[in-house]
């Protein structure tokens, strides 16, 4: 009895869950969490949070490499929207991203469905072959395709010659450089969606197919009613992640055409690089980059919505 009297009203209320614990209580209770997360937080701050904020403030100045620069308001943004090359690169980037993302999604789905029909051993090594482009360095991918499409010595030219036809200049004339860039990028990254889809398909319990088959569903109906609903979330995930990564893609297009001939295939990523490190105009380069950030962050919001509470992350 004496003990009970010693406890305060707050303690008793907390014991029965009538009071919320305060923030400081939670902080004290979870100190290990902070010990564990501090290194990550420091690393992200040093090379992500700080540079990002620094970049945004930079766009309001005329900073160049090694010169702090003066505040000039929105002049960089004004320059941006009136710059023909930027507008052109913006349009082509959207086309490039849309083309590669949907091709990667489609090819990845077909590859995953085909692989799923194979036996386990065959799935392993054929899978390794089909996925192999994804694991080459993106820069190497650019060089590989440049050589493959080379007008004099490439496979493509030789194959055309086989039929007595002259190969078009795949990296220069007409719509060919655009097609080449999209095809090469699709080649490099379609395996990503194949991997995600394969994991999603493998996680569908086979009982569901058996049940559907017993109730008389044919192959196509089984695919539509059992497989497709399970692929919805993976599809959103692939679309948003690949959109962001295709926007960010620099190495492979840079090696393949470098934005050329001239500025014909100029992508936003290559333009950002050129303004920053060829012209040394850091402020304007980051302003160009803001357009890329805007596009990828839109994709990121979709992604976060899709994974929602699930937190089953796909990388």
């Amino acid at each position: 009895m004496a003990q009970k009297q010693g406890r305060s009203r707050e303690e008793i209320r907390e014991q029965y869950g009538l009071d919320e614990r305060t923030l400081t209580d939670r902080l004290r209770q979870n100190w290990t969490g902070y010990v564990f997360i501090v290194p990550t937080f420091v690393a992200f701050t040093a090379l992500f949070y700080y540079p990002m904020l620094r970049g945004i403030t930079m766009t309001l100045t005329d900073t160049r490499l090694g010169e702090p620069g003066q505040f000039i308001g929105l002049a960089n943004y004004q320059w941006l929207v009136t710059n023909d090359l930027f507008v052109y690169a913006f349009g082509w980037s959207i086309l490039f991203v849309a083309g590669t993302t949907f091709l990667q999604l489609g090819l990845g789905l077909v590859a995953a469905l085909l692989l799923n029909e194979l036996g386990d051993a065959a799935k392993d090594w054929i899978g390794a072959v089909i996925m192999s482009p994804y694991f080459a360095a993106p820069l190497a991918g650019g060089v590989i395709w440049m050589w493959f499409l080379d007008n004099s010595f490439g496979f493509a030219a030789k194959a055309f010659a086989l039929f007595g036809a002259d190969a078009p200049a795949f990296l220069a004339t007409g719509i060919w450089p655009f097609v080449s860039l999209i095809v090469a990028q699709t080649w490099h990254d379609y395996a990503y969606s194949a991997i995600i889809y394969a994991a999603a398909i493998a996680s569908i319990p086979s009982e569901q197919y058996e049940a559907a088959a017993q109730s008389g569903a044919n192959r196509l109906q089984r695919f539509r009613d059992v497989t497709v609903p399970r692929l919805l979330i993976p599809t959103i995930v692939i679309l948003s992640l690949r959109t962001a990564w295709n926007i960010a893609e620099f190495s492979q297009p840079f090696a393949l055409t470098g934005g050329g001939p001239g500025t014909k295939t100029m992508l936003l990523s290559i333009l950002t690089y050129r303004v920053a490190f060829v012209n040394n105009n850091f402020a304007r380069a980051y302003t160009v980059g803001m357009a890329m950030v805007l596009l990828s962050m839109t994709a990121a919001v979709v992604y976060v919505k899709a994974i929602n509470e699930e937190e089953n992350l796909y990388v």
Partner: protein
Amino acid sequence: MLNDNRRSRALLYAGIVAFALFAIVPYYWVIRTSFLTNIAAISPDTGFIPAFGKLTLESYTQIWDRFAFVTFFRNSIIVSVAATIISLFFAIPGAYAFARLDFPGRKALFYTAVFTIMFPWIVLTIPVYEVFYFLDMVNTLVGVIVALSIFVLPQNIWLLQGFFRQGIPENIEEAALIDGHNELTAFLRIVLPLSLPAVAAAALFAFLTAWNNFLWVFVLTTDEEVRTATVAIYYILGSDVLREWNVLMASLVLLVAPPVIFYGLSRRYVGEGLGGTPG
């Protein structure tokens, strides 16, 4: 019925072959060139599949005296190993905190970490370059290592937090807590040893991502002594010297082979961790 089955089987194999060809033929063209002499590589008489007698390892021996590839590959290895170790040092506790521990601000940090993975890194190189320029870290291996460590960090965190979440049952830690461990020692003595396979997989991926990276090394270095193999190939491609295609392609094979072979071999064990739900 049997007929239908046979036809769909044929369609399946046709599809598989088409994919395999699409994936492999560009590679094949590089490998073919790397085993020819420079004259044969550009000769129109050499067939799609060159005669066996024309194959030679000449280009693979020439790489080493034509360009400073010893330095380039050594730099690649130094930079990738260092970035792997540093990023794991950061990622292991971070991933564990995301997967298991609840603390105010966890959600916010978690979602900003999602954004880091989707951020266009080329944009970030600009302010980072400014910082490195200020700290005199441009054109040094240290600068490259720091940049790459943080570049591979998000990927490591995702891989490991998925493993901690799904691969290790929570009651293992609860049992450890009852046995008198606190959260820190439970992690160090119980969880970490159990996670070694996942840590090894993450280390492999981190190493190969750093190995494959072009952007950071390209932006942060100009000198040949601190160049990695990936960047070196770009410079050789752009140089005006008489191009020795077979030598260039041989160095490309050496650059691409390690990641492709390692990923291929490890696919069965850790492949799903790379894409798809980790663990």
